[in-house]
């Protein structure tokens, strides 16, 4: 009962994470249905209609019910601790955001019972989404559920920004905020600027479907292109919204396990601001296949390439932090280092896409699927695994098992790369994404089979991960307050933190308050402003 009625930030954070884990397993099963259907040419594991529903639900679930909620969960759990506060600015709104999010998820899945899930892909292009072409209730459920989820994420973002602005402990200036908090602050602002165009386009879509409006129906004077513009004005910042908190996790984990402060704190923080600004000027690179005109294409291609610069600055900072550090390869750190490699591959294929002719050749092929999974799985999910191994002791008071952790790590690395690396080649030889099945062309069957086997290994890795959580929650070694000898404030609280978090917040005189406590002879604040 306390779990349902409670409003503490830690409990709400855990609920966010658990619901995201549940939907992660559901979304993973949907992915396995797709991989089974594509394992060999001309298979008929599911019907074509079911296949369309499954890939739509997979994308929508992973983005709106897994990645965004789990990142929100980490931030509402950790940010009050990291800034020395006792809770979020609006605890009741915080709990409300979670339950709204869960209801949105359940509403989306009710569509299966109501006569068919949405089947127009996660970006639901018009005019396919119009009542004429999608007469079933699936897309109504999709639009309404995402409207609820959007409201939930906006409420959570407002709460988060207000918390960081108003509830910092004395001494916790903006220049001393842990980078995880920095990234989430920028992220909260990005959500507030990006979600409205999604909400507006959903309102318009629902108008079309339910009230005979004609925003997106070209046959009646509307414009399908308007949907594409509005959706991607939300959709591209959304890509960064799904990775910024993960950047924040990496920026906490790599320094602690390298025993060095982050290299270029200011560059990591300010490059996020640069990315946030740029992300609003690149949406049309999702629309290069539309005839937009040469000037238009050039501007968006240049802006998209430009984003690689601040992103590269971050990768450089993390790598430079590793350089010369005394590295401890815990499971958490393994995932963080793997993140660097996998995310860079995804970043590089992203820059390739910014080149218009390459985009024309590869858009809507499996190369896109490979690219986005390298960023979202190899990037965000790897960082999340690193984050779970790092903060699980704080959440529960128990360490996750390192032996199971290694198994988890290697199975996921092998499985992930086997699944998605070959999809680059499938895209290059011309396999379109979102096709139900394919003819027996040279190479297609073999590459798809490798991908499906890889997905099987990946599932096994996730299974080990879930087992590790269950086993360690019950039998894991006691963690103590500060198992990693870390520097940010959350490690000064007990594990799990008591209600109210701190009896007394440690003094904050630098970016590493706990380092100062542990090393009164050589505190950071002596040379603050130099590094």
């Amino acid at each position, binding site marked *: 009962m306390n779990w349902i009625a409670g409003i503490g930030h830690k409990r709400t954070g855990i609920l966010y994470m658990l619901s995201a884990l549940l939907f992660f397993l559901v979304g993973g099963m949907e992915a396995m249905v797709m991989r089974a259907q594509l394992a060999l040419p001309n298979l008929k594991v599911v019907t074509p209609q079911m296949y369309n529903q499954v890939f739509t639900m997979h994308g929508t679930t992973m983005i709106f019910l897994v990645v965004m909620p789990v990142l929100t969960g980490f931030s509402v759990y950790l940010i009050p601790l990291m800034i020395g506060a006792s809770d979020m600015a609006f605890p009741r709104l915080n709990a409300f955001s979670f339950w709204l999010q869960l209801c949105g998820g359940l509403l989306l899945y009710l569509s299966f019972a109501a006569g068919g899930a949405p089947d127009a892909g996660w970006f639901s292009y018009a005019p396919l989404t119009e009542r004429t072409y999608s007469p079933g209730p699936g897309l109504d459920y999709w639009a309404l559920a995402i409207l609820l989820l959007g409201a939930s994420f906006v409420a959570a973002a407002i709460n988060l920004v207000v918390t960081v602005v108003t509830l910092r402990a004395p001494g916790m200036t903006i220049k001393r905020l842990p980078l995880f908090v920095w990234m989430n602050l920028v992220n909260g602002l990005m959500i507030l600027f990006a979600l409205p165009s999604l909400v*507006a386009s959903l309102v318009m879509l629902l108008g079309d479907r339910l009230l005979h409006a004609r925003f997106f129906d070209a046959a009646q004077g509307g414009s399908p292109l308007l949907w594409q513009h509005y959706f991607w004005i939300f959709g591209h910042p959304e890509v960064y919204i799904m990775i910024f908190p993960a950047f924040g996790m990496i920026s906490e984990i790599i320094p602690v396990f390298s025993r060095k402060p982050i290299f270029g704190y200011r560059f990591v923080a300010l490059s996020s601001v640069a990315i946030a600004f740029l992300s609003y000027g690149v949406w049309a690179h999702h629309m290069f296949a539309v005839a937009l005109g040469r000037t238009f294409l050039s501007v968006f291609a240049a802006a998209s390439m430009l984003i690689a610069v601040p992103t590269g600055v971050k990768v450089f900072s993390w790598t430079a932090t590793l350089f010369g550090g005394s590295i401890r390869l815990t499971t958490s750190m393994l995932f963080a280092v793997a993140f660097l490699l996998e995310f860079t591959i995804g970043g590089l294929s992203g820059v390739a896409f910014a080149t218009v002719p390459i985009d024309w050749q590869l858009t809507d092929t499996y190369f896109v699927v490979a690219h986005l999974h390298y960023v979202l799985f190899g990037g965000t999910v790897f960082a999340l695994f690193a984050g779970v191994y790092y903060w699980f002791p704080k959440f529960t008071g128990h360490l996750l098992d390192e032996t199971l952790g290694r198994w988890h790590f290697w199975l996921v690395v092998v499985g992930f790369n086997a699944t998605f690396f070959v999809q680059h080649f499938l895209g290059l030889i011309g396999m379109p994404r979102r096709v139900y099945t394919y003819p027996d062309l040279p190479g297609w069957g073999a590459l798809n089979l490798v991908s499906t086997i890889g997905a099987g290994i990946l599932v096994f890795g996730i299974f080990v991960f879930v087992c590790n959580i269950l086993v360690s929650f019950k039998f894991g070694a006691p963690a103590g307050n500060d198992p990693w000898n870390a520097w940010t404030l959350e490690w000064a609280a007990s594990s799990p933190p008591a209600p109210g978090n701190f009896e007394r917040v440690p003094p904050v005189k630098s970016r590493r308050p706990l380092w100062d406590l542990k090393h009164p002879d050589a505190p950071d604040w002596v040379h603050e402003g130099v590094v």
Partner: protein
Amino acid sequence: MRDRVRLGMALFLLTDAIFFFFLILAFIYFRDASLHTAALTLDLRVTATWTACLLTSSLSMWRAVASPRRRRLWLGVTITLGVVFFVGQGTEYLRILRDGIATTQGLFSTTFFTLAGVHGLHLLIGIVLLAILLMVGNSAATGVIAMYWYFVGVVWIAIFSVVYLWTFL
């Protein structure tokens, strides 16, 4: 605590303003195709009257914040003016629907009624908030709800300018 709530409301209004920006942009996007119907359908004079009521209600709202002793009086005036606008414009929308020049079958009514409907919903929420404020008498919340009420007025100025003034001037 007061700063916290004010900042929270300000952030919400920021994101809401962007939402309206996109709906107004959609109206402009289809403006050429719907201008003719708009000119035939809309009644500038009637809506200008109701608009004056809504703008005046921002003034009375400001008085309710500025003079705590007459708070209930000014809140009552604000609610009355809000309801007058709501009923007045609502009657206007019903007339347009009844006239049938632009029933549900046109681009003009698509963009116009989406904007008008979303603004009307905001207004209705504002009236409910003010009514609760009048009944509960929590003066601390007055300032924050006033922010929302000013916002509803400002958004209407934008809609009135783009939809009405631009069509006729």
